Structures are given as C-alpha cells and as structure tokens.
C-alpha cells in the first residue's frame, strides 16, 4: 500500500493571462508525495510555488490562467478530470488546504464551533450532536485546553496562532490524504510557529496524511520536513531528501539559498 503515492503530479504547467499574452509561471513540475511524508516546496516569492499548489487544488480560475498536466492524481482519483463539481466534494475532505492568513479563511459571523462542526456534518454526514463532539475532540488534539470556550467564541476573539490551529483542525477533520499548507506560519510569532508546525506535522503522522508545505524559510525545511522541492522561475530545479539537500545541494541556486539562510540565522 505504502508504495503508491498519496499525490502524483506529472508535467504540471500554469499559464497566467496577461493582456493578450500568457506567461508561464509553472513549467513542467513533476513529483510524488508518499503517504505521511512532509514535503517542502521552497523558493523565493514569485517562483511559482503557490501557483503550483493552487493548480493542484483546482483553484486557478479560467479568468486568471490555464492549467495543463499529464496527471494530477490523488491516490486513484484523477483530479485533472474531475471538474469543479467533483473537486468541491474532494476539497476539504480528501485534500485540504491551509493558507497564510487564517482570518480570511474563517467566516466572521459563525462561531468557531459551528464552522468546525460543519466539516463533520458536510463531509462525514454526522448529526449535530455527533459533529459537536467530534469538533471538541479535534480542538483538544490541536492543543486547546478549553475547547468549549473556543467553540462558543468567534474568529476575531482568537489570536493569530489560535486561528491557524483552528484552521488546521478544520483541514484535518476528515483525515485527508493530502494537506497543502501555503506559508501557514509566516504571519505568526516564532514561538507560535513552533507550536503550530509541530502540531500539524504530528497530526499528519498520526493520520497518515501527507503534507505539502510551501515555505520560503529554509530553517523550516531543515527542521520540519522530510524532502524538499526547490523551485525557481517556474522550474523545479531540485528534488532531494532534506539530509542530502543541506549537505550536498545539486543545484547552485539551492546552495545560494542555503548560504543566505545561514547568514541570516541567529
């Protein structure tokens, strides 16, 4: 079982519309993500790492651009062939996404408990009562000591770190095969970042969820991830285990990134 990848991407290209022309922002990206693996997608801003994730999730609207791929397979599901309706059933359930700014992903007029419980009702068909119990358990697992208080309150009443943990709880509620996290801790303090990342990765290990972690921080790659893809100007320039990457990077660009990160470190 563990031989077949959780996510398999072949020759993914994203073209963004610009006036009358198209610009290639992702150019032939291919990779496999194993169940339970934590894979980093690294690069500077504008390298195409976020667009890669959005394309996998089917979140590049036609007005914005065009996606082509030989394959985007989530286990036995062919995401490229699903269409928007099929994707809606899958997203948040088989494959979830966490964004940089948690407040934009939460609805300000619904309580936190309602929003989390909805995941269990919609995707798991649970009753109101069941879904509230599931939500409470989940909040405890992402480290909230007082889940009832969190359930009753609203997103604006939480700190940034608490919001991001709530989002991760929602994303992990259905034990997805793949969690895509796009700079999930960039807006957080370092202490909160350590808490959120270690909880997210621990949950992934528990449920066998593979994590695609998009980041520009090589510290995060080194200390939290198993393997890394390095992107530059839409191209994937390196795919290596984290151990290899930091000891003997293949590509000169990767070496530059690593030495710049070491220079900036404490």
């Amino acid at each position, binding site marked *: 079982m563990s031989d077949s990848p959780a996510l398999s991407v072949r020759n993914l290209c994203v073209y963004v519309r610009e006036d009358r022309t198209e610009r290639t922002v992702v150019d032939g990206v291919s990779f496999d993500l194993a169940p339970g693996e934590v894979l980093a997608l690294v690069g500077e801003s504008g390298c195409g790492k976020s667009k890669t994730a959005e394309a996998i999730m089917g979140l590049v609207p036609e007005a914005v651009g065009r996606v082509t791929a030989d394959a985007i397979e989530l286990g036995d599901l062919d995401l490229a062939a699903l269409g928007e309706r099929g994707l809606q059933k899958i997203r948040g359930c088989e494959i979830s996404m966490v964004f940089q700014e948690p407040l934009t992903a939460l609805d300000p007029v619904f309580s936190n408990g309602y929003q989390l419980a909805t995941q269990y009702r919609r995707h798991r068909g649970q009753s109101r009562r069941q879904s509230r119990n599931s939500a409470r358990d989940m909040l405890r697992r992402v480290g909230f000591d007082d889940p009832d208080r969190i359930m009753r309150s609203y997103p604006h009443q939480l700190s940034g770190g608490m919001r991001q943990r709530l989002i991760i709880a929602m994303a992990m509620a259905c034990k997805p095969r793949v969690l895509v996290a796009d700079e999930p801790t960039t807006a957080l*303090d370092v*202490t909160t970042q350590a808490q959120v990342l270690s909880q997210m990765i621990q949950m992934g290990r528990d449920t066998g969820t593979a994590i695609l972690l998009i980041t520009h921080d090589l*510290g995060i790659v080194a*200390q939290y991830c198993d393997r890394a893809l390095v992107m530059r100007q839409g191209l994937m320039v390196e795919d290596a285990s984290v151990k290899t990457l*930091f000891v003997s990077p293949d590509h000169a660009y990767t070496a530059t990134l690593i030495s710049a990160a070491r220079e900036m*470190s404490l």
Partner: protein
Amino acid sequence: MSDGTQQMLLRVSNLTIEYREAESPSGKLEAVRDVSLDIPRGGILALVGESGSGKTSLAHAILQLLPIASGQVLFQGRDLVGLNKAGMRAARRSIQAVFQDPLASLSPRRSIRQTLLEPLDHFAIGTKRGRSDIAAEAIEAVGLEKHLLDRYPHELSGGQRQRVGLARALVCGPDLVVADEPVSSLDVSMQARIVELILELRERLGVAFLFVSHDLSVVRRLADRVAVMYAGQIVESGPASQIFKSPAHPYTRALLRSVPVADPEHEAPIVLEGEPSQPLTPPTGCVFHKRCADALPDCPLHQPVERAISGTEQDHTEHRVRCHLWNS
C-alpha cells in the same frame, strides 16, 4: 559627577498602562505592568516579544499616544507624563515615530515633498526657502533620489515608502526615533538594507532608536541592547550580544530556540506548551510560570523581582532578569 540618570536620553520608570475593558471584573486590563527601561544618546534598544506582549502599547505610551496609569517617562530629564499640550508639542520635535505600515502613515494626497515639509513648517525650522533644502537633504540621507520628492506614496515601493517614513521622522532633527515594527512588512533583502540605513543614521546623526520587533534576526543585527517582553512585563534586558549568546530567562531561551535553523542536524526547535498569557486573567506569581519548563514551587506564588546578574548601570552593560531561578 555624572551618574546614570543624567546621561540617559530616555528613562522610563515603573510604567503601567491600563485599557478599559468591560469583560474584566475590575473594568481594566493591564497591558504593561511596572516596566522600566533606559536609552542613552545614540543608543539602539530593541523591544522584542510575541504579539500581545505589550511592546506596541509601551512604544505608544512613550510617545504619549496612550494614557499612562502610573510611572514616569523622563525624556532629556523632563517627565513627559502630564506635560501640557504646548510642552508636549515642543518635545515631539525631539521624539519622532516610524510605524509598521508606511502606506497607512503617509497621507495619500500629499506629495513626498509636502509630507516632509509639514514638520518643518510646524516647528518653524529654518527659513521658508531653507526648508526645501532640508527636505532634499533628508530624502538623500535615507538613500532616495531627489526627484521622488514630487511623487505620491502609492507611486513608491514598500521599501521606498519606509525610507520616506524614516526621512519624515528625521527631518526635524530628533534625538529619539520610536520605530514600531518598521521592517516587518518588507522582504528580507529590503529589511537588511533598512537595518544598514538605521545603523548609518545613528552613526552620522547620533539619533537613538527604540526599535520594536518580533524578528530576532533583524534585532541581532541592529540593537545595542535588547529588552524581552512577556505578558506586559520586561522579563530580561541586557546587551544584545549577551542576550543572544547567554539568555538568562527561560522565556528568552525558549524564544531563541524556537527559531528554526537551516541545518537538519541542528537540535529541533523547542515547543512552548500552552497559550500566551491572557491579559484578562493574568497569572499569579511569575507571568511565565505556566509555560516554564524550569518552574519552581515558588513561581506561581510570588512575583519575581528584577535583578542585575552582570555588568554595571554606569557603562550600560547591565544584564537584568526577572526570574526566581536567579534569586539565590
């Protein structure tokens, strides 16, 4: 004889800031409790800590933008707390601010020139004709070209805007600039250049900075001294080199060790358990005891006092910590 007090540009003593808060039983919320700090002429003090720790409240209170519940803010030997309007207006010439979001703090309808001339007009600095030259000098001092004076904020990049923010703060020749997260909205290479600029301005003009930041790698490059805030208190302060090399407070150690290092062989970042302290329900005893790995039986009971563990106040090398582990 000159003792420490007279040399200090800014001396904050036992400052407490309260917000009105309907949900609190007392109707009040203490954002900053009993904080003291000093900045000498030309010094750079960095205030670090997680969001909600009170560092922005403290910066705003020093600027007299927030009412102060108790304590003193001595600037050049005068207490700014309770100063009348005219007195405070005069003081503002010497104590200026730079904010986190330059686009929000620059008027969109004024050209950069108008923005830079305003403080000069307000304080009647120089002759009317001379002011244009001062504005031009200020824009060059922050590494921008003179032709940008006729541009508007939306026409500039983030880095350029933050340089304009600095130029505006410097144009009336202040002795202290309070900068609240001035580089947080910039990307890494631009951050490094603004840090270089601040160091150069300090060298050339002798301006002191209170630099509020949660970014430890920026602080390490910039500050002479660092004060670490947690839950409204300064838990540790000292020379930057010492804080980074041998942090004394368990919170400072956790803070430094939660920064991920670009080396898979390096020891894993430590995770602080629990939530940051809630200002509505401040813990008894030490503010950090609930999350502290080294807590003693005494920690939840008594508030630790701040004590010096090395250095002297006279040469500004004092390393102070507020922790029971050091009370022996």
